[in-house]
């Protein structure tokens, strides 16, 4: 039956999504089971079997699944809750503290109560051993294997579960690391092992040791979880292919994920941007900004042909130098708490009421949280009429207007000397400004003009705020996907297999050793081909992308840019240099092209991509423009352009049909999402059930 299912495990819900040819896509949600997330996965699949026109038994249904793409936050949570493996580090004598020092940064400079983050490996398990390579990888002192043995003995005594190996200048010569690794494999066969140059053979010691230690810290936990998941799935009758989401927006097999667990550390939101692109493409756009507003956080990412990639990031203040999607997260969600600072300014978040206690209006909701006392974004949205107290989550959760008003009155309206409605409007306004700022981070600050991008809006509360966000940023066009509330699960079905490789190769571009460079690239491409072939991807569905990390001589930060295959093949330096100048200019607003400044390459990267099969969107037939069949009624809702409440029409989102057109201001209600079409926008329902919002007069 060729069934491919996306399963996204979140903090509260585990989302399921699949498409069968010729049928409407299926969306399903079950409560997550944090102690063992695989329980919810299997439960959800069993429930899915019963949905639809022709129910199957659970085992029949699960046996018919060919591919499961799975997003897990096991490694992320392990790091954030500090429940990772007891780890040891073998490193070069004299530099064992680099991991803990983090280059000596204190992120909050004026805050003397701000303490350093606890190191992933305690100092007594960080062992420096004799053995040294110079900057070119030449051996100065041979590796002292006796000292490595002593370290291993200590690790045995201390019941260490995971071992990291990272030596100075190993990026230029992995020999010492391999020698030590061999000994560890022999003496500690059950320990999880991470070798820095296997994971990240590139220059910058701190980044490499931190990444390696993170991998060891989360590896055993992920390994355990994947075993649980495979076991349970197998028992339930699954015999297809399981793929795991990575932070780089691609997927990989569980066998690889076990080895490079750190690749999943920031994978939570990483399938969203790719999904956003699918909806943008339906409207003829190959780029977009994708935003996702959840209960506690707001995520923004930018896509140009493919999602923008960053070469490093941070998790809980630990450096992670692996390619990952450039997703900016801020503490702005439905649960974000409004407060007045000591100077009398209204602020929203980053503190959040989360799911427990939850917004004030959850007093009688019957949710896990009993409802807090502090005013949140959701409370403001209720007061402003954006949320329907009787139709929240399709009526499953009843919202308490009095509690919301009381919280806003006490904590915002009174201190600011204004009425409750105006205070709520202010909260809404500030929340939107914060989110617009989040969008600036991934657009303007990266050299992109947000006005040129459609905004794809995800998350239950996202489309209440998106018109004002678009107003702030002058964005003329937004798309609210039909699957807005489970965008990441959709993205999983759209993800290709991706493997990233890197080699440090320091040289000036004008006197490049092309043969050396080509052999490095060929080696990485071979590795990629081998992995993809093992994963069953035929040659014609494989592709390689080459990137250089370059900089002007003596600059400290590199610019990473794709090198056209043809230019690389022809050794066309001129074209490569032009591409570097162009990217530098886009990012930083100037080049040193006229000055003829020398350029040096630091790293060369290859991404091996294996294309997977993707479901085709389900198209409806187009009907009339008149949406009156979907009209539910009218209610008083705050229209921010007029700074006033107005009686505006409310539509049932599930009764909207392709071709229906609604002129703002209007409200559209779905079970999982509420959409506010402001006065400045018109809304058109597209053939795939998504909503396209055009700034009035801008539609072409």
């Amino acid at each position, binding site marked *: 039956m060729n069934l491919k299912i996306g399963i996204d495990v979140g903090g509260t819900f585990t989302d399921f999504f699949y498409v069968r040819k010729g049928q409407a896509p299926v969306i399903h949600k079950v409560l997550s089971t944090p102690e063992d997330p695989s329980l919810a996965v299997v439960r959800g699949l069993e429930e899915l079997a019963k949905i639809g026109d022709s129910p199957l038994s659970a085992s029949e249904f699960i046996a018919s699944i060919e591919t499961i793409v799975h997003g897990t936050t096991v490694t992320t949570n392990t790091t954030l809750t500090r429940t990772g493996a007891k780890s040891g580090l073998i490193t070069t004598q004299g530099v064992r*503290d680099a991991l803990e020092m983090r280059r000596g940064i204190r992120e909050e400079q004026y805050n003397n109560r701000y303490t350093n983050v606890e190191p992933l490996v305690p100092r007594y398990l960080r062992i420096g051993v004799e053995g040294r390579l110079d900057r070119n990888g030449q051996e100065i002192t041979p590796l002292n294997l006796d000292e490595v043995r002593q370290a291993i003995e200590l690790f045995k005594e201390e019941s260490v579960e995971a071992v990291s190996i990272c030596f100075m200048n190993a990026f230029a010569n992995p020999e010492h690391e391999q020698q030590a690794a061999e000994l560890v494999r022999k003496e500690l066969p059950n320990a999880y092992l991470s070798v820095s140059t296997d994971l990240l053979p590139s220059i910058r010691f701190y980044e490499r040791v931190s990444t390696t230690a993170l991998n060891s810290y989360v590896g055993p936990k992920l390994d355990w979880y994947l075993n649980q998941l495979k076991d349970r799935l197998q028992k339930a009758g699954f015999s297809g292919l399981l793929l795991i989401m990575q932070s780089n927006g691609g997927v990989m097999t569980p066998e690889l994920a076990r080895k490079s667990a750190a690749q999943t550390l920031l994978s939570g939101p990483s399938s969203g941007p790719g999904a956003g692109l699918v909806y943008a493409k339906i409207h003829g756009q190959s780029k977009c900004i994708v935003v996702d507003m959840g209960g506690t956080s707001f995520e923004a990412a930018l896509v140009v042909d493919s999602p923008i990639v960053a070469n490093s990031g941070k998790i809980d203040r630990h450096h992670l130098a692996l390619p990952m999607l450039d997703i900016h997260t801020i503490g702005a969600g439905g649960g974000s708490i409004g407060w007045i600072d000591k100077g009398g300014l209204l602020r929203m978040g980053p503190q959040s009421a989360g799911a427990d206690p939850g917004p004030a209006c959850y007093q009688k909701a019957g949710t896990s949280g009993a409802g807090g006392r502090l005013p949140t974004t959701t409370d403001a949205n209720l007061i402003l009429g954006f949320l329907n107290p009787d139709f929240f989550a399709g009526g499953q959760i009843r919202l308490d207007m009095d509690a919301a008003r009381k919280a806003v009155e006490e904590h915002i309206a009174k201190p600011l000397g204004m009425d409750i409605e105006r205070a709520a409007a202010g909260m809404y306004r500030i929340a939107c400004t914060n989110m617009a700022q989040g969008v600036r981070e991934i657009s303007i600050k990266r050299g992109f003009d947000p006005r040129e991008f459609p905004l794809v809006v995800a998350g239950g509360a996202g489309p209440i705020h998106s018109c004002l966000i678009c107003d702030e940023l002058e964005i003329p066009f937004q798309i609210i996907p039909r699957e807005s509330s489970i965008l990441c699960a959709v993205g999983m079905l759209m993800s290709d297999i991706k493997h990233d490789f890197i080699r440090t190769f320091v040289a000036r571009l004008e006197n490049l050793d092309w043969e050396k460079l080509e052999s490095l690239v060929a080696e990485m491409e071979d590795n990629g081909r081998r992995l993809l072939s093992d994963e069953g991807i035929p040659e014609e569905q494989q592709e390689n992308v080459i990137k250089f990390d370059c900089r002007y001589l003596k600059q400290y930060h590199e610019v990473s840019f794709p090198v056209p295959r043809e230019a690389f093949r022809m050794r066309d330096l001129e074209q490569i240099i032009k591409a570097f100048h162009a990217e530098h200019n886009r990012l930083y607003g100037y080049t040193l092209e006229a000055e003829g400044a020398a350029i040096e390459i630091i790293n060369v990267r290859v991404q091996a991509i294996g294309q997977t099969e993707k479901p085709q969107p389900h198209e409806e037939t187009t009907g009339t423009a008149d949406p009156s069949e979907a009209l539910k009624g009218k209610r008083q809702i705050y229209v921010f352009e007029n700074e006033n409440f107005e009686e505006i029409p409310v539509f049932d989102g599930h009764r909207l049909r392709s071709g229906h057109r609604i002129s703002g201001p209007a409200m559209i209600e779905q079970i999982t999402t509420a959409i506010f079409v402001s006065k400045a926008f018109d809304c058109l329902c597209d053939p795939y059930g998504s909503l396209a919002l055009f700034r009035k007069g801008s539609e072409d």
Partner: protein
Amino acid sequence: MSQTDPILLSVYANTFKSITDEMSIVVEKSTRSPILCEAKDFVTGLYDAQGNMLEQTENLPILAFSLAPVCRYLLEYFGDEIYEGDVIFHNDVFSYGNQNNDVAVFRPVFFEGELVAWTAVKGHQADIGGNVQGGYNPNATEVWQEALRIPPVKVYEKGKLRQDVWDFIFANIRLEIVQHDMKAQMGACKVGERRVLELLKKYGTESYENHKSALFEATQKMMEAEIAQIPNGVYCGEGMVYFDGHHEGSEFTIRVKITVEDKKVVFDYSETDAQTNGFVNGTYTSSASATLLTFLQMVNPDIPHNEGMIRPITINIPEGNLLNASYPKATTFGNHLCPPNADAIIRALSAVIPERVTAGWNNLLCSLTTGTDPEKNDRYVDIGFMGLKGGSGAMHGTDGYDHIGMIDASGGLLDQDYEMFEQQTPHLLLKHEYITDSAGAGEWRGGLGVETDFRIGSEDTQVVIFGDGDFEPAFGLFEGQDSILNTIELTYPDGEKVVPKNKDLILGVPKGTHYHQIAGGGGGYGNPKKRAREKIKAEVRNGVISPEAAKTDYGVDINK
């Protein structure tokens, strides 16, 4: 606040902050000198038409106060000859510059023909002329031996480059990258201008004017509320400076008298020693920054950095004083008078707000090595960031921060990455680790110091040393103990040992010389005997406290 909207006020505050942050990212990512892009020794700021600070991103706290006084001076200097499209450079320490090497770019922002704001970036340049490359000349006695003076000068007027002026300036500066870095600073100012204009287009001049005044008032209130928590009174403290670079054994005392009266605070330095004849002299702007950053660490760290924050604070430093040298004294060391100035303020306030002050921080002792990489046949300059970063002082309830570096940077200055260090210099790193027992003992211990060892890889290497902390360690508070001293020692290949003075210039250091440096820890806070036993045991196991020190300093026998 009659014409202001409290909600819009928050929008303005957010926007101002995002503008200076965005400018900061442009500078960080596009400059070439490691002092700018790695050490982030620069500040970006936004000022109103009168030169009042709207917001700034200072990166290093020592730059907290360094632009606004210059902005006001420019207004006075150019009067009605400020035009759209102007770009102005400035570094002159005798017209409110803070340090010669810190060169500022100012760009006036016009909206509908009216001057409405200034965007500015000040950054520490890799060279600014003078006798010694890099600017740190321990032998200097006058400003001209240190730097090219740049009083306010337009390099662009009405959008047109003044090539003659540009060429004149850069003919007096050794390194070409300084031109590129100044262009990067100009780029950041332009980015800032664009955002200010977007804001004005949306809300108009009147709304902007009203709201910025309201913002200053709101911030002022916050600062006043903080000051009001300190009991009224007059509090005095001292900090010591050792060696002016010329007279061995010379010592100088910084004396501060702090008067707290209701919602206002005055820092008076009238009793501080007179200026020196060397380069160990402060400028008003840099000294006032030092005072502010130390005080800001004792109040709520979330107060916005704008004009309103400064209004309740008065800083009085008479000219001719060690902290405010008169024309034409040498002053390059001035920023590094921050640690002893902070010592004086901490000592003054420790009795009255004991739970808000830290014990003493490790003072700066820094080296700068210059030479030619024999393999690459290329000149290098390296500032020894990783070697200079000691520990911070402990405070009530919180241990000091390990390897954070001097208080002027408070953890904003990063180590070189070890492998990048070996790529960019010919040196071989032998050791960079925490030092056992380097932290001042206490119920809350000081931050740990570090030890740095490397083998020098170039012949005829020049080593410039500047700093302090080799005579007096970071001090403990309330029965907390002092830390250990800073040291630098060179061992030549023939076995000869050289211990440089704390302001020194050493020439002809041969390849193969062993460089050794100790940056001490921070002072401890409270009686060490009260420290939790489990913490001490864990620290002994981790080797940051020795079993002997556990016994003598903390009274804990680890074997029992």
